[in-house]
């Protein structure tokens, strides 16, 4: 069996792992990043394509939380993690929410000054910016519809670098912090899955892994480490901890932003290469309205989700764009590792309030799209009628039930909540797992609740803060 040694082992190379790796490597620590997925050139596959799903998504995108309704979800599985497949939308953690988390979970050093300092660092490092020119028509729809209704809408910044001609390149972790960590001396071991952490008393002494070799065969690897950061994301991190026998407050409290879609047909063709960057924020933080990837396959899927006859709309797919309503949910879920299975059982229970909030969100989404000039709306509710006028939307209210609504999410958080209130959290204020001196979490799992906005900004900010705090103890 192959054995590797390192001072710091980082498991996962996504938003949390890459920030941690770059921070620690630049500080001169010896860092080994182990990533289960492959290392794929960020330019190798088209964004939002089927190839991207096959190569970069965990389970090729076919994951779902069981519940009524079930909720499909997605995670990245490649060097760079979900930042390779996400839309790059960036929104700082709202200050009121950070304050609420600080008080409820007793999180030390979680003031606006501290968070702003690390957000500034992340934003400079990743060139977070807004579009230099006018938004594409699919995005302007949201602004226009909201303006007609007197609602607030804003353009979100993105983790994008724009050149002088306005062409943007998403600054994924595989394009930015992973290579920068390598430049600073970190090593990356891709296609290597950590299956179990090795414990001795209150320390983790290393990890057991399985590495996939170029021919497809696998080899067992043992990694000896002085410090371990688990950054596998909100589903995989608790799974690994539970498989390693670490269970206290681990895996419960999973939070989603449950999301429902509408395919909107317009009288003319729209752009389909990118996602809209505008959001209707009138009902934030409990409800957000935005736009999704709308390649031909996505349009077809969204149309089919309405369960009716959509052949005519599909034939004119270039006139159709997919939008969504997403909520901050009062419900929660659980990740449970099952002996003998790699993938955990994931369950999620939406409350009645969540369901009516989402149904209301769907109606608001319909209103804004009709106000912006959409001529036909196909909601992701089996059997719901196509809406052509505002009066038609009321029928969606009754059609929305747990068994007819087709829901999904790409925002997963809160399975190892952070804070000094040990009765509610799995890790301390800086991500150190209770009961272990050298085991830390540094990813989406730490967020004590769903942020109500796109989460990567909060994840990276908190990861940078925690990595700095770790360094201060060495």
């Amino acid at each position, binding site marked *: 069996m192959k054995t590797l040694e390192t001072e710091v082992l980082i498991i996962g190379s996504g938003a949390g792992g890459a920030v941690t790796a770059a921070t620690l490597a630049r500080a001169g620590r010896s860092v080994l990043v182990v990533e289960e997925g492959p290392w794929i050139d960020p330019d190798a596959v*088209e*964004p*939002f*394509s*089927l190839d991207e799903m*096959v190569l970069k998504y965990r*389970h*090729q*995108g*076919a*994951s*779902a939380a069981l519940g*009524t309704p*079930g909720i499909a979800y997605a995670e990245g599985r490649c060097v760079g993690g979900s930042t390779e497949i996400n839309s790059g939308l960036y929104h700082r953690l709202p200050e009121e929410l950070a304050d609420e988390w600080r008080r409820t979970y007793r999180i030390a050093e979680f003031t606006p000054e501290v968070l702003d300092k690390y957000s500034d660092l992340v934003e400079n490092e990743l060139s977070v910016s807004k579009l230099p020119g006018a938004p*594409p028509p699919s995005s302007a729809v949201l602004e226009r519809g909201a303006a007609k209704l007197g609602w607030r809408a804003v353009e979100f910044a993105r983790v994008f670098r*724009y050149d002088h*001609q*306005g*062409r*943007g*390149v*998403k600054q994924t972790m595989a394009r930015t912090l992973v290579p920068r960590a390598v430049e600073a001396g970190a090593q990356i071991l891709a296609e290597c899955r950590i299956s179990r952490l090795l414990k001795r008393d209150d320390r983790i002494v290393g990890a057991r892994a399985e590495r996939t070799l170029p021919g497809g065969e696998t080899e067992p690897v043992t990694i000896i480490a002085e410090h371990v950061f688990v950054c596998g994301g909100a589903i995989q991190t608790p799974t690994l901890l539970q498989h390693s026998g670490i269970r206290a407050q681990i895996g419960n409290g999973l939070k989603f932003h449950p999301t429902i879609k509408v395919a909107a047909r317009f009288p003319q063709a729209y*752009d*389909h*290469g*990118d996602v809209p960057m505008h959001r209707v924020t009138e009902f934030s933080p409990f409800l957000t309205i935005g736009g999704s990837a709308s*390649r*031909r*396959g*996505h*349009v*077809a*899927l969204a149309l*089919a*989700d309405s*369960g009716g006859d959509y052949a005519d709309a599909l034939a004119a797919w270039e006139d159709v764009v997919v939008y969504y309503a997403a909520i901050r949910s009062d419900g929660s879920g659980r990740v449970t590792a*099952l002996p003998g*299975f*790699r*993938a*955990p*059982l*994931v369950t999620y229970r939406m409350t009645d309030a969540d369901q009516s909030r989402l149904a209301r969100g769907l109606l608001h989404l319909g209103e804004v799209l009709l106000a912006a000039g959409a001529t036909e709306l196909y909601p992701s509710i*089996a059997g719901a009628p196509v809406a052509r006028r505002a009066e038609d939307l009321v029928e969606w209210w009754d059609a929305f039930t747990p*068994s007819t609504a*087709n829901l999904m999410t790409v925002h997963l958080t809160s399975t190892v909540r952070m804070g000094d209130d040990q009765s509610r959290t799995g890790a301390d204020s800086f991500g150190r797992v209770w009961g272990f001196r050298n085991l830390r979490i540094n990813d989406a799992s730490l967020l004590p609740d769903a942020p109500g906005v796109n989460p990567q900004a909060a994840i990276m900010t908190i990861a940078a803060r925690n990595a700095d705090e770790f360094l201060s103890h060495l």
Partner: protein
Amino acid sequence: MLWLERQVVASLSGDVRPQHRLAIEGYVDGVLRAMPELLRIGVAGESIVLGAGTWLAARLGSRRLLSERLEGWEHSRIGPIRQYVRLLSSLVIFASEELAPDPQALDPSQPSAAAAGANGRG
């Protein structure tokens, strides 16, 4: 892929060219293999039960086409049966559209759909 899954994919992908059908089938097969084990077990269980029912009905002389059965399952009162049809049809729909032969692919003077999509990001 199990017997019924193959039949369902063939039925849902409709009248497409054999190569396109093979590509769709290959994609669906890949996703079913990649699914979380527990979900795959559930889907396989349904394929076996529904497949056995379909096979038996045919042996007993039923003339109901698979497409008609699928329509019934899609509106079944049993959630997992509805979800079974939804899963397979979502995979087939996405693959049929995304793997559709590109009509411009043979014309080198035209930018391909792929390049247009990538440029659209900027």
